[in-house]
């Protein structure tokens, strides 16, 4: 789990903070309220989840509940992975 959080965090620092580690968000910090991502930034996050983590994201899933913090995004990814594995098994 920790590695997924770190992978997401590394992407955020690189893509949204351009390497400025002094603003690195904690797991539960709101990305929206702290101006790390805006309405277009969140779509970059969606692209990251799809391209780098291999998880398709439906429009209905682009929610603050899934994307507004590292922990929320990690939980979303984990649940999708779980779902995918179940699908594979079925």
């Amino acid at each position, binding site marked *: 789990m920790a590695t997924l959080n770190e992978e997401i965090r590394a992407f955020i620092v*690189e*893509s949204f*903070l*351009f*390497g*400025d580690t002094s*603003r690195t968000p904690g797991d539960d910090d*709101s990305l*929206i*309220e702290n*101006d790390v991502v*805006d*309405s*277009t*930034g*969140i*779509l*970059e996050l969606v692209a990251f989840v799809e391209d780098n983590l291999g998880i398709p994201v439906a*429009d*209905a899933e*682009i*929610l*603050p*509940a899934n*994307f*507004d913090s590292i922990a929320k995004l990690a939980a979303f990814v984990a649940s999708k992975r779980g779902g995918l594995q179940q699908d594979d098994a079925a």
Partner: protein
Amino acid sequence: MCGVIGYFGGEVPTQKARHLLHRMAESVQHRGPDDAGLYIGDGIGLAHRRLSIVGLADGHQPMANGEGSLVVCFNGEIFNYVELRSTLESRGHRFRTTSDTEVILHLYADRGDECVGQLNGDFAFALWDGLRRRLLIARDRMGVRPLFYTRRENTLFFASEVKALLGVPGLSAEMDPFALDQVFTFWAPVPPRTIFKDISELPAGHILTVDDGGMAVRPYWDLAFPDAADREAGRSEADVADEVLALLDDATAIRMRADVPVGAYLSGGLDSSITCALAKPYAKSGLRTFSVTFGSQEHDESAFQHEMVRALGTEHSAIFCGPDEIAEAFPSVVLHTEKPVVRTAPAPLYLLSRHVRDEAMKVVLTGEGADEVFAGYDIFKEARVRHFCARQPGSQRRWQLFRRLYPYLPGLQQQSPDALAAYFGAHADDPADPLFSHRPRFRSTGAAKIFFSAALREELAGYDAAEELLSRLPADFSRWHPLHQAQYLETKFLLPDYILSSQGDRMAMAHGVEGRFPFLDHRLVELAARIPPVMKLKGFVEKSILRKATAGLLPPSINKRVKQPYRAPDSASFFTGTEPDYVGRLLNRTAIEKTGLFNSLATEKLLSKCRRQANGFRDNTAFVGILSTQLWHEAFTKRSAWQPGHHEPSRTIQYGDA
């Protein structure tokens, strides 16, 4: 339309004045390729570059009155000069020329500094009163024409563009970091501040007076709105619409006055379609129209342009503006804006004015100003929706209006109501904040400040550009309707400081083309300010009263068109075709560290991200802002970079006692 240059004070020895004025005037000769002139007196010097439009044969400047006691050096147009002249003649004034310039001399003789209140026009002029040994410098109400000044010891130097002031001995270009912060907040520095340390801009609607006793700057006009509580009773919408149309027609008619043909820009939007439709009957030998087309569908409006051309029967020509064209023009654009910009939108206008000049035209009408005056911009709707949402912070349904507000932003359409609520409600702005309407824009632009270097941040520590803006608001601002507050902010700041400057005067005058703006006739601006907010922004219909007023002039598809913001491709312009050399040269780590304004590591990452594909406002704002700042730095702080072309003055006449 022209360039004005001059000084007042004892620092310039008379024998050196001629050379100095020549050199300064040469740097703005693009503003006035047709003629040049000088006036040199004791402690006073004026220089002029002329673009001849009215009084072709007898409008040479600087122009003196019959006695030689008053001399004026004037950039712009006085559109009501015909009426002013006949009033002045009836009061005994005798005119020697047919120019509008002479009207200023007589009007000043008649009324002193109050003359500015009588002028309907776009102007920046310097008027020397030799008997009082006093200089009056004035700038038009809306800020169409520019005027910059600086003081060295006890001498005031002034010019239409900063590049002329950089010819003043001992003055070198240095960046004002607070002005850069303003660019990365408001898109432009707020006058009197400029991006150049120690160089000021005379704010729109202000006069500057200077004599041996000292200098003073004061406003003579301000945009004012009625108290929200005052409801002008009884006027029907139809009456108001009639009055708007009549005044707009007159504002257009007097802007067709010229001794050369007047053409018009035609974007295909509501505003320029209106100016073209109104101008057509006044263009005796037919109306020529000009437009820009883009390759990308989200920017291009050519279908609407063709529709208007067919409807009006104008002689039309268009230029195509693709990414390569923007990238190629951009360094020249920054030489002319003379300040960093956070959008590439000036570039197509630079290319368009070049095309107009190549077609041998000097004057064009534009639809600029209608969105400020009649509430056309999305920011006005957005503020209304945010007010509406703020009344019920728990409601998610209300935030869905943002999707309707920005149908052209594909990213938003995909997102859920609670995602919209999260973005737009993330900062619970106080509806009572005077800057409420503009806070999201200031934040989204300001997000690019994450690229500021540690040294720049340290210099800016404790500075808040918005606080500086708050200190400029009029005393009764808080009593106005929220729409009027937002209109004031847009009309008093972004309009003169960016739209009319970086996209307006500078881009047109780069090629000796004069823009004229019927919607910015101050009579119309004052009338529109008194129109109730609900007639301007009616539900989600922007410029409602203007549409009603002009319904008979336009095809319904144009009259009912929803506002499409004028935009050009931003960072994509530099990477779609061949990447221009200057991008890598100015944005590499060494170059960034040399300038010292931005974080070199972060900028490098931004550059590589943009090379792949930039996303969103912040990356685009940051990229264009950093690139233009680096271009500015290279152009202006290395003195050799600004090299004027080689137009020779057609004649030079010297007045005065030098």
